[in-house]
């Protein structure tokens, strides 16, 4: 299955939008097209996985094969994914580098164009940069590692830190959770493993960036973050892919564990090209008085299905999902939140804002579960949709199951439209139609954008502007 390395021509093929460029492939390891037990063995061999991981993967493969597509509730568009036409593992066989100077030129240029080394210098505590299946760069600042913080890729995590990794791996999200968590569990590669020791408050964010470079490729990173008692961490994730002729699959699993009194914030800004199927499972466990926050911004992709969840397992735990989704022409953002209250006095908060542009469609799916035997639980859910054009679509499926009467829940939903009078007013002051649209959309998400670190809110505004530019005239 190995493919001969190709000569590197460090000239990226230019396209017109951010992130829409690609370098020629030069993979030393290529699992080929299609998925079978042999594919899983190939990945295990290349990665030199321990036996328990090989077993884990093979069990997951069987679950994946048995589980039907969830099209009884989700979109039929899932059926267009052809699992035989996807490549499940691609890498150049290089170990992740600790210095950008050692990273191969084309990969380095890719990340430079995406602004990663610059952000690292400016405000990050550590960075991992993944190119197709494996990390090309991984570094954490000395001051952070001296505090005992572990920040490595998943392969290194499961081998070098098995005693911390293994007890939680696949426990927050079992392989059988859904068809795509099973798929990820079978073929995962890359992603981060992070451990923050008790009491350590990491002041600057750690960041991972996931880049797809190859066509017909599936990216299946796996992230596990454990923040020990009283510790704090903010983790940020960014993603892009060039626009290919054929569909690309991104199917990650992210598991978070916040021990007693810990605080963990996970921020995503994804800007996938419009033919990526982005089917991601993300869930966190919050122990006593711990807090897990998902801050999620979904721009681009053909179909995103993502419902970050928090299981509030300990008394007084808090869970939060703050999300922004923008669905442009031909895109479907099917996003939401799952809040599982499993202890007394737990609090969850969901704020979701979606924007549908052109023929774009956004769907909110919520699940709030508060069982009868608990008391003092609070949930607040607010989902607002903004429709830009008459053909834009939005739908909301809030499932709130609250048993017993010792709880407080609140649900608000709204659908609004950018009015012609509003756009006319702004144009009369000299803004072009696209600028007016952009400003309106930015205004709509303004209160949520403030939740993002400054550096990211600027980026977010720029991405929204780019999306709106193409949407008018």
């Amino acid at each position, binding site marked *: 299955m190995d493919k001969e390395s190709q000569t590197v021509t460090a000239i990226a093929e230019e396209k017109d939008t951010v992130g829409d460029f690609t370098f020629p492939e030069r993979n030393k390891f290529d699992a080929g097209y299609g998925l079978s037990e042999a594919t899983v063995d190939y990945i295990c061999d290349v990665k030199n996985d321990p036996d328990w991981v090989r077993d884990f993967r093979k069990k997951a493969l069987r679950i994946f094969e048995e589980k039907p597509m969830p099209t009884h509730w989700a979109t039929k568009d899932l059926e267009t994914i052809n699992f035989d036409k996807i490549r499940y593992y691609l890498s150049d066989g290089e170990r992740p580098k600790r210095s950008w100077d050692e990273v191969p030129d084309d990969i380095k240029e890719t990340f430079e164009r995406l602004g990663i080394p610059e952000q690292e210098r400016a405000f990050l505590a550590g960075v991992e940069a993944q190119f197709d299946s494996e990390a090309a760069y991984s570094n954490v600042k000395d001051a952070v590692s001296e505090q005992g913080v572990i920040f490595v890729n998943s392969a290194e995590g499961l081998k070098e830190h098995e005693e911390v990794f293994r007890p939680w791996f696949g426990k927050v999200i079992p392989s059988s959770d859904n068809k795509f968590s099973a798929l990820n569990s079978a073929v995962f590669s890359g992603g981060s493993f992070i451990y923050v020791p008790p009491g350590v408050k990491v002041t600057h964010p750690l960041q991972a960036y996931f880049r797809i470079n190859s066509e017909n490729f599936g990216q299946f990173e796996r992230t596990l973050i454990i923040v020990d008692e009283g510790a704090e961490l903010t983790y940020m994730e960014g993603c892009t892919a060039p626009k290919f002729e054929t569909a690309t699959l991104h199917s990650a699993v992210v598991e978070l564990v916040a021990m007693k009194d810990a605080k963990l914030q996970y921020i995503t800004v994804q800007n996938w090209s419009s033919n990526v199927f982005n089917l991601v499972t993300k869930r966190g466990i919050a122990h006593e008085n711990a807090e897990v926050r998902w801050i999620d911004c979904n721009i681009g992709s053909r179909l995103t299905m993502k419902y970050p969840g928090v299981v509030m397992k300990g008394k007084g735990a808090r869970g939060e999902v703050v999300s922004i989704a923008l669905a442009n022409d031909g895109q479907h953002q099917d996003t939401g939140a799952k809040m599982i209250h499993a202890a007394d006095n737990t609090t969850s908060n969901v704020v979701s804002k979606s924007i549908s542009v052109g023929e774009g469609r956004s769907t909110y799916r919520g699940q709030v579960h508060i069982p009868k035997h608990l008391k003092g639980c609070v949930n607040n859910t607010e989902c607002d949709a903004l429709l830009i054009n008459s053909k834009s679509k939005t739908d909301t499926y809030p499932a709130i199951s609250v048993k017993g009467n010792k709880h407080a829940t609140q649900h608000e939903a709204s659908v609004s439209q950018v*009015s*012609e*009078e*509003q756009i*006319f*007013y*702004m*144009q*009369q*002051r*000299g*803004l*072009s*139609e696209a*600028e*007016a649209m952009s*400003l*309106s959309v*930015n*205004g*709509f*998400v*303004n*209160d949520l954008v403030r939740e993002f670190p400054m550096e990211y809110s600027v980026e977010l505004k720029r991405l929204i502007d780019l999306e709106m530019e193409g949407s008018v005239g």
Partner: protein
Amino acid sequence: MSLLITDLHAAIDGTEILKGLNLEVPKGEVHAIMGPNGSGKSTLAKVLAGHEDYQVTSGSVSMDNQDLFAMEVDERSRAGFFLAFQYPAEIPGVSNANFLRAALQARMPKGEDLDAVEFYKEMRDKMGKLGMDQKFTGRAVNEGFSGGEKKRNEILQLMMLAPSYAVLDETDSGLDIDALKVVAEGVNTMRSPARGFLVITHYQRLLDYIVPDVVHVMADGKIVKTGGKDLALELEEKGYDWVKEELVTS
């Protein structure tokens, strides 16, 4: 140099509202348009601004010899046309400061950025002159503003954008006498040989404070009478029926 409207006909949903309107506002002058409700004053204002609901069926408008109808709404604005709306729109989530900044930035040459410090200084200064609380910089444009606050905000934008021609559509409605004076004072400071004003009003009261050079009376989509500032007083005294009767008899 003027805003010159020639034989303008315009319709909405197939109903003709403007029926051959002629008017010239030279730079440096303040003209008032008075007229009964429904005579087409706001229609004129929106047609000049380029609202897409209205169809211009014939006639022309030139602004300093530029064809206004050849320009998009935003181009007209950047070329120096300003409309203070009778009913200003609300823009949720967009602060007054950000909106004004974006409007001014849109007027900058490509690649040049607005001087933020200078901008805030100027905005605060003008808000002071209009008796607007500084907290309005951070509030969403017109959202939850009272009628009077909205009108002040329109004048703030007028002062910041400093257009060549400004149409004020019933800026006096919804204002108490003190607010009216402040707003009129704001407009008066903007009077200049480099700027023309068209002040639309239903009542004579505003014209006590913004004294016009010329007064036009509009009825049924046309200018039916033109005179000096005394015409406004005469109208106030005799009522609009007087103009309508004159129309019928003429």
